[in-house]
């Protein structure tokens, strides 16, 4: 069903434990981690509790270790049966959330080095997002510069909800570097939990957190638009990863409508915001939070006003579908090719570049 040459834009690679990162960390930080006993922590985030059924499809659960923690398993579950040309690995880890900016950078570096050595070096189909300390844009930019020469890194990964809204000028040093190197900013579902996932306060239950994550994406996008990030960085693209997709048309309409009345507040926003979104923002297609049939998907694309925004993604190993029903059956072949290949290639320019 998935045509050959597809590009899987969201595969989750899980760091089995901080202990596995130690060989890939600088000696100073290795000792720092060991002295504090941090290698005994697993840095699981409450956004992706390992025990939650949605985070690991039953048939993708390994006998030992976390789902997403084994390359042979990824090859067996996704790379061999679906035969994508590339799969982009996204690591979600507590390193992105801890308060110490230096330790956050040290762990993120360890993750990136581990990714390159343990995954990218071992399967030529793999690509990855650069993990950065999101609360320290200068250090994040430094880490992007360090890795930019390795064309297997095709994106910079952030979480939708951090310390400040993602559009704030505080974040711009990171965007400047990402734009320079042709790296889209991937905004993945999740939070640093500096603030509640719901704007109304801390919820009691996983259910409300999970559903509210879509609002986090809407908030991040509103901030990027309103602060003028797309004007300031004309070549920067943003990929909303694992955001769900059905909230976007209503949000675009609401943004356009309100902008017409208060646009003098954001005078740099000098064209219809929804047109900017269509040009510069992409979304991974899993989870697809509407009925999983072709008619529903076509209806959403009609509301987007574009068939160039959706990117194929398995969201491995999360449990959103069974077998290989990643996309609804019965999509027109041209559209299927766009979603699985043309759109990802247009979004990630580094996929077309030679790698060593």
């Amino acid at each position: 069903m998935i045509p050959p040459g597809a590009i899987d834009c969201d595969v989750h690679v899980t760091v089995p434990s901080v202990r596995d990162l130690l060989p890939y960390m600088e000696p100073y930080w290795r000792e720092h981690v060991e002295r504090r006993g941090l290698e005994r922590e697993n840095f699981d985030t409450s956004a992706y509790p390992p025990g939650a059924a949605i985070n690991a499809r039953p048939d993708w659960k390994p006998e030992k270790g976390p789902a997403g923690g084994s390359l042979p398993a990824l090859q067996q579950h996704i790379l061999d049966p679906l035969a994508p040309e590339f799969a982009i690995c996204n690591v979600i880890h507590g390193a992105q959330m801890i308060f110490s900016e230096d330790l956050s950078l040290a762990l993120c570096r360890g993750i990136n080095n581990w990714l390159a050595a343990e995954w990218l070096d071992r399967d030529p189909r793999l690509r990855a997002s650069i993990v950065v300390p999101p609360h320290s844009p200068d250090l994040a930019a430094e880490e992007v510069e360090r890795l930019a020469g390795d064309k297997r890194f095709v994106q910079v990964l952030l979480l939708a909800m951090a310390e400040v809204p993602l559009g704030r000028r505080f974040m711009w040093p990171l965007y400047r570097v990402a734009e320079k190197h042709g790296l889209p900013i991937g905004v993945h579902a999740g939070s640093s939990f500096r603030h509640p996932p719901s704007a109304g306060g801390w919820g009691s239950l996983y259910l409300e957190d999970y559903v509210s994550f879509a609002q986090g994406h809407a908030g991040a996008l509103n901030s990027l638009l309103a602060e003028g990030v797309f004007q300031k960085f004309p070549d920067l693209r943003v990929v909303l990863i694992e955001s769900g997709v059905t909230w976007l048309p209503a949000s675009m309409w609401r943004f356009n409508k309100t902008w017409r009345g208060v646009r003098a507040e954001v005078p740099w926003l000098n064209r219809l915001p929804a047109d900017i979104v269509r040009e510069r923002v992409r979304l991974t297609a899993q989870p697809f939070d509407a009925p999983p049939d072709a008619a529903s998907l076509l209806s959403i694309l009609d509301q987007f006003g574009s068939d160039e925004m959706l990117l194929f993604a398995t969201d491995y190993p999360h449990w959103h579908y069974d077998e290989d029903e990643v996309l609804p059956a019965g999509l027109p072949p041209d559209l299927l090719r766009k979603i699985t290949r043309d759109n990802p290639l247009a979004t990630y320019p580094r996929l077309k570049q030679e790698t060593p």
Partner: protein
Amino acid sequence: MAKHIVAAVAEIPPGGRKIVTVRGREIGVFNIDGTFHALINRCPHQGAVLCEGAIVSRLEAPMPGEYRLTRPGTMIRCPWHCWEFDIATGQSWCEPDDVKARSYSVSVEPGEALAKGPFKAETVAVSVEQDYVVVDV
């Protein structure tokens, strides 16, 4: 289309406006630095009395944070939803090509010429000593 005398020039000083009714429709006549413009007094959005809104400048920014106040007093802001329109062209700021208020051509004619016709002056008494604002409707 016919030319209608809607005001003596002295009635609408620079920065001023006058709402007139011509052939059953309300029209706002504006004086921007001595040049007269006319727009239908009906917002293309939802029909509000557009020409009774605030007269504002163009606030622009080529980049975030680079604020520029340009063309003071050249935009009309609808009193209902604050959509802004260029008084000279009727074009909306947000969608200049798609959302426009109807504009009318305006000229200034001396009373002497007007006395000869064929202008219509249902509501304005014309004297040969003054200049008049004439709208083509």
